[in-house]
């Protein structure tokens, strides 16, 4: 009797675990089925090479490049803000700061990642853009600069926290050896500790990039909704995620090509983030083996 009960419990726990696999299969199937139907009506070569994305206009073009460039531009700006600041914070907290300071500051910084993204959208549009407009004349009310900057602030803790964990895990013997040779803290940090923790730092950067690419509300609110193939940070652009939001807010008939465009855009986004996540997982696994 007891054996049967134990078995039933084990199997139901296993079922719960298998649900996670069902989610992945579900995501892939949903995106793939709708995307296949989309590509039966739109040539995949047009999708990848056309420089215009206008599925909601009369003159329809289905080139993903403008959405992709918008996504990469905002993400690039975000990383340019988050990487130097986040990395400096992590090195400072791990190598210089007193223990008590570290213990108070880390959770406060992580609060940055806990703020809902719609709130950051408000900051970007209502607070940051007007300030930037005073510095950069001609800056459009919707632009990738302000959206990217605020997104960068949001992802600082992704880089600072994970990198700090990696730096902190470096054995003290390495530091002491370096100090013993007469090196300063700065030399030790950059020549010994950072290289030793490099895989963890790289993982944190990849995760931050993946987070920026998938971020939706900040760009939907502050970057505009005009797909445009440009590297100019002062004009409105549209990201893949913002496009999906735009269509979801409108009245698009289920089963139409317009409806399927969000799945074609979605699969592009999924593939991008999947590649980045897999890469970071691989690096993390290798790193664990080295330290444990």
């Amino acid at each position, binding site marked *: 009797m007891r054996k049967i009960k134990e078995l039933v419990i084990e199997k139901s726990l296993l079922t719960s675990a*298998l649900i996670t696999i069902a989610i992945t299969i579900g995501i892939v199937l949903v995106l793939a089925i709708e995307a296949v139907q989309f590509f039966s009506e739109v040539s995949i070569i047009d999708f990848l090479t056309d420089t215009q994305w206008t599925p909601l206009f009369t003159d329809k073009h289905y080139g993903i490049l403008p959405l992709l460039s918008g996504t990469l531009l905002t993400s690039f700006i975000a990383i340019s803000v988050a990487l130097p600041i986040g990395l400096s914070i992590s090195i400072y907290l791990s190598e210089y700061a007193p223990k008590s300071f570290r213990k108070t*500051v880390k959770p406060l910084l992580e609060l940055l990642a806990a703020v809902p993204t719609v*709130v950051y959208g408000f900051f970007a549009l209502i607070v940051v853009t007007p300030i930037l407009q005073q510095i950069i004349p001609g800056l459009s009310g919707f632009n990738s600069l302000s959206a990217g900057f605020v997104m960068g602030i949001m992802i600082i803790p992704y880089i600072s926290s994970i990198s700090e964990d990696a730096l902190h895990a470096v054995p003290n013997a390495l530091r002491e050896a370096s100090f013993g040779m007469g090196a300063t803290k700065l030399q030790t940090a950059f020549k010994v500790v950072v290289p030793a923790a490099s895989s963890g730092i790289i993982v944190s950067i990849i995760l931050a990039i993946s987070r920026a690419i998938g971020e939706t509300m900040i760009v939907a609110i502050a970057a505009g909704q005009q797909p445009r193939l440009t590297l100019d940070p002062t004009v409105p652009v549209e990201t893949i995620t913002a496009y999906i939001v735009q269509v979801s807010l409108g009245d698009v008939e289920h089963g139409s090509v317009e409806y399927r465009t969000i799945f074609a855009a979605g699969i592009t986004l999924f593939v991008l983030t999947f590649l980045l996540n897999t890469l970071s997982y691989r690096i993390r696994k290798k790193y664990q083996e080295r330290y444990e």
Partner: protein
Amino acid sequence: MNNIQKNRLKDQIFKVWGIGCTLFALILLAFFIGDILIDGIMRIDWAFIIDLPSRKPEKAGIYTALMGSIWILFLTTIIAFPIGVAAGVYLEEYSKKNRLSAILEINISNLAGVPSIIYGLLGLEVFVRIMGLGASVLAGSLTLSLLILPIIIVATREAIKAVPKSIKDASYALGASKWQTIWNQVLPASSGGILTGVILALSRAVGETAPLIVVGALAYVPFAPESPMDDFSVLPIQIFNWISRPQHGFIENAAAAIIILLLITFIMNGIAVYFRNKWQKKLK
């Protein structure tokens, strides 16, 4: 200046730079919150909480959106909590090191990195269309449950890992079965850590906007939902809708609603940190 002095100077400069970066991030956070408070605090009164949405900013309230968020929170908890903890227990206590466990692990790690809007597309097809739930609270909650499942699973595993092996050995020595040991010893000992993870995951769910927009949650709902099958809106969508309007009155409303949303998020985070600290002390 010789080399040693130069290196010491560089060291000092970096130290100042490091403090500067840390303070920059914290001050910006404080500035954002301060700005929101100035913009919105005057707008918050009891009427703002219990009023229905309106075309006129001064008459509009957050009642329906707040109720929608509470419904979503409630349903997401009852769906995601048992499944997430069960999966976490399986992976930590039952699963053997084999192909299946490797696949499960890679898969969960990958799911945690899937953008939330993709979950919205999944929910739109599976829950809204195929299962025919429509743009209901239930469809929204199911979608968010899938989204936070990986977070709960990872937190459960970490919490169980922290339980000392001696507790389990003692239970087995007294003749308890595997499940009795888990239910009576492991889960109570790890409950603080699990609770922390679940609350953090739920605080993420409260702030989510994009997947619910994709699922079809509305910006304007005349009444608060009364059953899981009703249409709904949530606070973040209400905020998004107000930000997108040109009249200044709505910006003030958005700031006021953000204060309420941040209050909910920060309180949940605070409770989570409290539980974690209490639990970590107990474990030691």
